[in-house]
């Protein structure tokens, strides 16, 4: 069964299994035949979207590389974290050519070069990073219970899942920085998370509670 997939990755793999040429599971080398066709079709009229997608790689780089440089030591697999923030394809054949979010081939080539040099642990971590995500149903249920209205659309859920995932990333990376400052190692403990959360609050990345806290 499918587990911990990105919403659009899951949806895309569903689509891949429907064309008759690719009856095999997603990581079969035959799969690239299918994703090449839709992405070629989509690439024609989505050129302006790729301009949107270029900035993520450039703007995500400075922030995440600063964060990840300090986090590299304890985790050991975060060396290429600054490139993991880019939405590039990884070694899994199912995503070859599909994302093409860099748009240009030399970004993809760069990414491929980096990915080919990953160790096994790094590859595992990267795969977890790419495939993990919040379940759409759970997020939708949560949003409905918060807003009290039933009009939670699919784009809303997808956007909220993406934002929440990036937020988790910020917390975990900041917690790793805190750990390296305190020169501790091993699994992240709640005290690191709390310190990371406090720092993020100071930086203003956490929305302040609009409801005033009555009981402190």
């Amino acid at each position, binding site marked *: 069964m499918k587990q*911990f997939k990105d*919403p*659009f990755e899951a949806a895309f793999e569903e689509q891949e299994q*429907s064309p008759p040429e690719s009856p095999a599971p997603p990581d079969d080398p035959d799969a690239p035949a299918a994703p090449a066709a839709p992405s070629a*079709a989509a690439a024609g009229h*989505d050129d302006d*979207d790729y301009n*949107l*997608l270029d*900035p993520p790689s450039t*703007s995500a780089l400075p*922030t*995440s590389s600063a964060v990840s440089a300090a*986090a590299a030591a304890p985790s050991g697999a975060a060396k290429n974290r600054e490139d993991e923030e880019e939405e590039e394809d990884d070694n899994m054949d199912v995503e070859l050519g599909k994302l093409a979010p860099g748009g240009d081939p030399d970004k993809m080539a760069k990414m491929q070069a980096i990915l080919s040099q990953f160790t096994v642990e790094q590859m595992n*971590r990267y*795969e*977890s990073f790419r*495939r*993990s*995500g919040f379940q759409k149903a759970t*997020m939708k249920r*949560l*949003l409905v*219970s*918060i*807003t009290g*209205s039933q*009009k939670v659309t699919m*784009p*809303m859920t*997808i*956007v*909220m899942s*993406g*934002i*929440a*995932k*990036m937020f*988790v*990333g910020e*917390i*975990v*990376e900041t917690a790793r920085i805190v750990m390296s400052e305190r020169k501790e190692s*091993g*699994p*992240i*403990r*709640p005290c690191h*998370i*709390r310190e990371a*959360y*406090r720092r993020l609050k100071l930086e203003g*990345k956490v*929305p302040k*509670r*609009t*409801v005033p806290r*009555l*009981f*402190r």
Partner: protein
Amino acid sequence: MNASSSGKARAASSSQPSESSSKRKRGIFQKELQHMMYGFGDDPNPLPETVALVEDIVVEYVTDFAHKAQDIGSKRGKLSVEDFLYLVRKQDAPKLNRCKELLSMQEELKQARKAFDVDEEKLAASLD
């Protein structure tokens, strides 16, 4: 001190904003959170209390975010994706870009699926 009291207060005040269901079941995001935290740099097996704490933080974040979006959206009439995007724009740029990516990917997928459905219909019609 501040952190622990805020932890308790967070659990207590989470029932304030959500009128419909004040009881939040533990571990609604647990499995996915574990994979996500590993992907972002934690151990392959994160501590359960860490995961629980991160889940609390994320639920609170989503709650606050959705409330703010609702406030913005109420001025406009109904809640829409635009409200979320507006809030994210104020926060930081990578998130906004990621949201745009996700939305455009979804559009692409919809188009691709629609095109595929049409092809299947044509195929079925031609076979008959």
